[in-house]
C-alpha cells in the first residue's frame, strides 16, 4: 500500500525528514514513533498526500478519496453541529447510506445526544471523538492517524483501541503516537524516527 524510499522533506533550508524508508503492505499496521520534532507529522502528511516530499520516492496505492487523515487539528467546523459536519463530509465522500453511517458512528463514539450542538461547545475530547468519526466515515482503505489518542479520556481511548483492533488486517494503518505500548501489539511495521 505504501512504499517510501529515502524520503526527505525540507522547509526552506531546514531538513525535517531525511532518508526515511517505509514499506507497508495492504492491511498492514505501521507504528511511527519518535521524539518531538523528529518529523512524524511531516511523514504522515506526506503519506496522506497533504505534503509533497522534497527528496526520495513515494508510492501510495490509495487514491486521495480513499485516505482517512486524522491530524493535530480535528478538521471540523466549530460553528456547525456534529451532524452537519459529518453530513458535509459524507456528501463530499459520497458515502452510501450516509445518514445511517453517520448515526452509527455518532452513537458508537457517544456523541448522538449532542449531535445537534455546535462543535464550539464541545470539549477537546469530544471534538477528537468527532474527528475520529470523520476519519472513519467513508471507510477509507488507508488510515493515517497522527497522535489519535490526544485528549481522549479512558472511555474514548478504549473505544479507539477496539476500533483499531477491528480495522487491523482489513485496512492499512499508519499511526504515530507518543504512547507506543498502547498499539504495539497491533503493529506489523515499526519506524522509529530520531
Amino acid at each position: 500500500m505504501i512504499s517510501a524510499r529515502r524520503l526527505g522533506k525540507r522547509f526552506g533550508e531546514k531538513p525535517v525528514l531525511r532518508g526515511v524508508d517505509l514499506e507497508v503492505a495492504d492491511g498492514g499496521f505501521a507504528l511511527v514513533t519518535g521524539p518531538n520534532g523528529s518529523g512524524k507529522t511531516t511523514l504522515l502528511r506526506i503519506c496522506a498526500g497533504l505534503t509533497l516530499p522534497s527528496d526520495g520516492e513515494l508510492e501510495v496505492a490509495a487514491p486521495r478519496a480513499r485516505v482517512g487523515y486524522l491530524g493535530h487539528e480535528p478538521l471540523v467546523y466549530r460553528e456547525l453541529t456534529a451532524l452537519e459536519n459529518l453530513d458535509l463530509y459524507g456528501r463530499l465522500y459520497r458515502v452510501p447510506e450516509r445518514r445511517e453511517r453517520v448515526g452509527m458512528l455518532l452513537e458508537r463514539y457517544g456523541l448522538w445526544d449532542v449531535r445537534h450542538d455546535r462543535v464550539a461547545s464541545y470539549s477537546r475530547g469530544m471534538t477528537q471523538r468527532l474527528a475520529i468519526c470523520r476519519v472513519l466515515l467513508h471507510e477509507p482503505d488507508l488510515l493515517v492517524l497522527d497522535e489519535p489518542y490526544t485528549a481522549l479520556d479512558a472511555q474514548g481511548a478504549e473505544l479507539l483501541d477496539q476500533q483499531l483492533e477491528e480495522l487491523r488486517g482489513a485496512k492499512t494503518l499508519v499511526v504515530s503516537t507518543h504512547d507506543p505500548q498502547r498499539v504495539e501489539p497491533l503493529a506489523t511495521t515499526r519506524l522509529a524516527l530520531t
Partner: protein
Amino acid sequence: MSYFADVRSLARKDLLLELRARDTLPAMLLFVIAIFVVFHFSLPSGSSDLAASGLLWVAIVFTALLGLGRAFVPEREQHLFDGLVLATADRSAIWLAKASATLAFLVLAEAVALPLFALFFHGIDGSTIAAFLLADVGICAVGTLVGAMAVVTRARDLLLPLLFLPLAIPILIGGVGASVSDDPARYLLFLGLYDAVFALLCWASFEYVVAE
C-alpha cells in the same frame, strides 16, 4: 453532476456558517453605508453625477474586498483546508463554492447599497445594475483565488488588496464605463469577456494554489 453536488454542499456550508456567525455580511453592509455617508459629506455640493458614479464603484470594490478577506477565515483558523482537499474529488469545487457564497453576500450587500446610493446621490439605471451583476462575478472569481493564495501567508491582510486591486482595474474600467457611457453595451460585453476569461483561469489554477 457530482461536481456540482460538491459545490452545492460546500456553498451551503458557507451560507450556514455566515447565518450562524454573522461576521461577513453585516460588516460589508456597515462598511458600504459608512462609505456613502463619508462620500455624501466629502463631495463638494454641485459635484457631477459622474464623480458620484465613480465613487459608487470604488465603494463596492472595497466592500467586496472586505467580504473576500473573510471568505477563508474559518478554513484558516481551524486549519480546514486539509479536510476539504482530501474530501473533494476536484479541488476547484472549493473555489467555485466559495466564490458563489461570496457572490451571494456581495449581491445582498448591493441590494441594500444601491438604493441607499440612489437616496444619497442619484438614480441608478438598468445598465449600471447589469454592470454590477457582471462585475460581481469577476470580483468573486478573481478575489476568491487571490484570497486562497493570501490566506496561507503571514501578510494576508496586506497581500489580498495588493494582489486583488490591480486585477480589479479592468472591472472598474468596464463598470464605470457602463454606468456613465451613452453606449454601455460594449462595456458590458467587456465585463462579460473578463468574467469568462478570468473565471476559467481561476477555476483551472485553483488546484495548484491549494496543492501544498
